């Protein structure tokens, strides 16, 4: 497409460099901005610049926040004995949404996958061990996807943390809520049967 202005072209290029945005959507967004108040556009673009420059990684748990201590770590009402280990910030946010976990987090920043060049050294695992010892943590919950890379990471974590006096658990896996047994795959169904739980506990509102 030919644009009447190089400025428009540049803006379209910028938008379309974002994931999931094509040239046409990019043009629509660029033209939309032209209709807005200049001050609005400035604060809009400013929000990204500030995001990139000012966002801090928590020195304790690697969550992102406005400070080097994130809002979760700051909150002294949270259970200081339990740490939930997650792959990424997105998983942390998903668990926070459930409102069923009131402990601390540790974002390891990926899963072990030698094919992708990610070994244990590339992840925030060593400082997790330090943290457990220093803070006298009682339990570590591994909330990690149960695929091959996730299983590898959980195995590695459990080996690393074995010598520490800490309980290690993993989130339950099995039939999802609203799911139908008939359509569950054999592995999931098989595991659900093996790790069955007493019925009364089934919908007990337990939060850590």
């Amino acid at each position: 497409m030919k644009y009447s202005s190089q400025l428009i072209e540049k803006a379209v290029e910028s938008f379309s460099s974002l994931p999931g945005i094509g040239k046409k959507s990019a043009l629509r967004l660029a033209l939309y901005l032209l209709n807005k108040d200049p001050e609005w556009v400035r604060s809009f673009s400013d929000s990204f610049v500030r995001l990139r420059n000012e966002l801090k990684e928590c020195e304790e748990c690697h969550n992102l926040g406005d400070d080097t201590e994130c809002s979760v770590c700051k909150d002294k009402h949270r259970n200081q004995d339990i740490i939930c280990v997650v792959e990424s910030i997105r998983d942390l946010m998903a668990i926070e949404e459930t409102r069923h976990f009131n402990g601390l987090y540790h974002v390891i920043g990926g899963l072990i996958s030698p094919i992708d060049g990610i070994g244990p050294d590339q992840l925030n695992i060593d400082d997790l061990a330090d943290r457990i010892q220093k803070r006298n943590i009682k339990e570590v919950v591994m909330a990690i996807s149960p695929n091959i890379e996730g299983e590898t990471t959980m195995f590695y974590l459990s080996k690393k943390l074995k010598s520490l006096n800490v309980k290690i658990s993993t989130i339950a896996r099995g039939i999802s809520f609203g799911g139908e047994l008939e359509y569950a795959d054999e592995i999931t169904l098989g595991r659900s049967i093996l790790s069955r739980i007493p019925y009364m506990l089934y919908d007990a509102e337990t939060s850590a």
Partner: protein
Amino acid sequence: MFLKHLQLIRFKNYESLEIDFAEGIHILTGNNGQGKTNLLDAIYLLCMTKSYFQYSEKNLILFGNDFFRVKGTFIKNNQPMVIDCKYRLHGTKSFVKDDKEVKKYASFIGTLPVVMITPADIQLIEEGSEERRRFLDMSICQVENTYTENLNKYNKLLRQRNSHLKTISNQSGKKDELLEFYDDEMARLSVMILFSRQKFTDEMSGQYKELYGILSSGMERVKMEYRPDCIGDVKEFKEMFTRNLQKDILLERTTHGIHRDDIEFYIEDMPVKRVGSQGQIKSTIFAAKLSQYQWLKKFTSTLPILLLDDIFDKLDHNRVTNLLKIIDSNIYGQIFITDTYKERIRSILPELNKSFKCFTIQQGQIDKYE
């Protein structure tokens, strides 16, 4: 089970084609490059979700187009089943069974069992063990869903393990935590895969001998043997990985395991690979594939579709007549046979008891004739 209706759109050299088939034998003739093999491959694709020749989807599109579609109506247990496979360039493949997207190919494969025999199968004998493992895997995965899942998982772990080996420089030979995990998991899967492969080869070796005998008019003594790279239980597999660790680190790959298994075919106790004539190699392939057919038939409780591409290729007249005698019996279901010469195949057809239909294929068009 049989294919009743087939529709091809922008698939290989087919612009657009719709055709009806019936039970029994179908003879497709036409010159080279007219689309005989492509038609068989389309049927194979509907049954196995993938091209027989391991073409990637983008190479199945008619040149100059950006999508293909293959749709077939099968009749299984007197019920119609519609399979619709679509692929758009740079998009994802959609594989739909009766208006429902198939999410797990592993659990679909085997619903419509199929056996294909093509001149390219010569690789089964002449090439490395990879082709023969593919023969094992393609057979077993049609019967055991868990086999496919275990095998996929094993292969993923193997790739991770190999990548990890490249990063290890220690010479101590001591396992780190990652190797410990990979070895544990791979050992567990190895035992299950080994068991299925052993069972498959045991079950079909008798059929193999018998079929080879009929094909070659009973002149030669043959056998087929599974040659696992290692055998044992989970513990022994783990020990095997540990034993080979030094070598693995040095060579930066997993040197032993079920990914190195093989099958060996023998004639008079000599490997066919080394001593077999062209005709003997061909008979070996046909006997192996037809015993695969019988095995699939037994364990899927369905008559598989048999696709015979260019059967006269390297088989003499006697062997072809013997082959047709075999497939003429009622233990074979729907069959598609291709050949380049109309006259050649017609000359032996009167010997058949089964009903058959003839088609000519020319430049992506197909005509039925009596």
